[in-house]
């Protein structure tokens, strides 16, 4: 093909390029539209399948509600299900201190964050969160520590897990009287569960 041939083919080639570009654009656009509509269709079909399954299982669902509603309400009252109830925790600390006859409890509660070991419990659709609490408790003797935690658990203010504790002797100067001999520093995790937003609340 020489220059003369190219000159003769100038307009047809321009037309061909234009047609190819337009065709490619049209095909690309229609492909994109089709892809979008197919994704939408897949989503709608998934929702339909879920809706059908939910309807079919509505009988089972009713049984589950009847079976677990009481337990859940207890957990709500106990501060595990739903929002954190820090005032309840502080009240519980105060009462546990009194009941264990300790010398006062210092506390420090950090901000709430996702519970790092949630995966162990496969909680979906629930979301597990924890608030770490550092406690400083002065003890008369070693058994007081567990007496304090048992008293705290009895308050039913929430679900807590002990992560770490350190107990050291306090210098009492050898004097034997009713005074703290040990200092315990512990870290607890107050764990709460929030219902999943994906599943709607029932009437």
């Amino acid at each position, binding site marked *: 093909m020489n220059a*003369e*041939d190219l000159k*003769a*083919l100038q307009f047809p080639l321009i*037309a*061909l390029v234009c*047609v*190819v570009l*337009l065709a*490619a654009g*049209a*095909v690309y656009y*229609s492909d994109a*539209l*089709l892809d979008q*509509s197919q994704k939408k*269709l897949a989503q*709608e*079909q998934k*929702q*339909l399948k879920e*809706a*059908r399954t*939910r*309807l079919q299982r*509505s009988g089972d669902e*009713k049984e*589950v*509600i*009847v*079976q*677990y*509603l009481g*337990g*859940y*309400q207890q*957990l709500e009252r106990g501060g595990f*299900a*739903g929002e954190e109830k820090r005032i309840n925790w502080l009240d519980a600390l105060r009462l546990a201190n009194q009941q264990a006859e300790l010398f006062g409890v210092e506390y420090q509660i950090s901000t709430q964050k996702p519970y790092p*070991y949630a*995966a*162990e*419990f496969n909680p979906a*659709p*629930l979301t597990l969160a924890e608030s770490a609490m550092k406690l400083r408790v002065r003890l008369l003797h*070693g058994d007081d520590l*567990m007496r304090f935690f048992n008293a705290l658990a009895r308050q039913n203010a929430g*679900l807590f897990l*002990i992560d*770490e*504790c*350190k107990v*050291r002797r306090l210098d009492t100067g050898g004097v034997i009287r009713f005074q703290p001999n040990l200092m315990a520093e512990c870290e607890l995790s107050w764990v709460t*569960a929030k*219902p*999943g937003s994906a*599943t*709607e609340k*029932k*009437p």
Partner: protein
Amino acid sequence: MADKLLICISAGQASAAHWTGSKIADCRVFAHDESGLAAFKEFLAPLSTVPVYLMVDAVEEDYRFETLPHTYGSDRASMVGRKLKQHYRNSPYTSAWLQGRESGKRHDDRYLFSALTNPELVTDWLQAVTEKGNPVAGIYLLPMVSTALLDKLQLKAPNLLVVAQHSAGLRLTFFRNRQFRLSRLTRNDSDTAEEADRIRFISEEISNTRLYLHALRITTLDEPLTVLLLDRQDEFGDAAQVIAHDNPGLSCQHLGRAEIASKLGISDEQLGLSRDVIYLYLLGLKAPASNLASSAITSGFRHYSMRHGVYAAAAAVALAAVVWGGLNTYQFMDANAQALEAARQTAQQQALYQEATRQFPAAPASAENLKKAVEVAQKLRESARTPEMLMGIISTALEASPAIYLREFGWKYGPTEIESGGTAVRSDSESAAPAGVTLPRKQSGLIDGEIRPFRGDYRAAIDTINEFADRLGRDPAVQQVRVVRLPLNVNPTLALTGNTLDNREQAGTAEFRILIVLKPRNP
């Protein structure tokens, strides 16, 4: 099918036909004079973009059969070019047609060289065509075009002589084994001569042709010959019988106007337009391979063909895009319709579900959340650990070691062991864990203590500590016990200083530190 302009040029006239829709739409005859040329130009005017196929029916033609050594590419082109120049030095209208290969050892190529030896014959017509800008597809000799007649009429005779009255005279074309071998054009006055004279003239010319073929050693006089009389105007009457009678070794077939019309598919009306209409029709169907026109003459047609090719490609691309886009659009609409239907059914199912949930007891969350919350709370409680167990293990071990004095006790429940202060050692499972993976949690404890009373007897103190550690390790719940720190560091890599004269009462302290790791399954 694309339009074509088919022109048959003879010495005194030219027949021009407009080929469209696989048939001749219009055919006119123009005399070779000023008025004829002017009329021809007028005829061309509205068809200036239509490609032109020229065909020459003249005495001034030449055919040569030759064999050349078998070659390829540029060697073949240059050799054939040399041969053409050698044979037809004065004519620009020449052609070489490769017809096959010899059966001998060398397998030489068999060529038919042909030429129009009087270029002036086409000059005026070609000039008129080029002036109008029509692309010239090719210039062909009429006998070459008539080869298509054999296929069209399904003629299979090994020696066939086609005889027909043309505007330029009587044309006799010989085919051997369905391949063109020779053609003669003899001038006669067919319009004015009596029928008997015409038949006698034809018979004589057939005899002359047979003698000529014999002289050229193409056929012998004894070989049977089939003569096909192409009688477009039904003017030869009983010529076939007369010719067969005069020549015993010859079979003669007469093809009258009606038969030509039916076998070739040309209308009777078109057959009457010109003497050359049969050949114009054959040229319209298929142009022969033997083209006399040089590439300079056909460059316009080459561009025309390429342009059409590119436009055809563009049309094909556009069509493909339309089909593809159409299919996509159909599928898009179908998917949308299905999505709408699915959404409608979902809404219906949800309404039914809502209706069903009215029968449910009032609950603060979904059934799944209720169940999961109860289960997870139970699991969390079961997973909870306290220092109580480790404290019990240590208390038991201490009962047999009154010299051990505990200063500090630490406990941890987590994926890593409790910090033991400068000598923390990560277990194998911890160091091997990939990033992002939560390790299983375990209980570990750290005891900080000293030997009381201590009077400088490090050996006894260390023995007491080791015994204490051994007792701890023997507990079934304990996985591992490590003495992290001893009162005296006897590590040979470290320096050690002291004084044996020191008062035993002021011997300092025998501090130690022990790390305890419990087995993972312990409550």
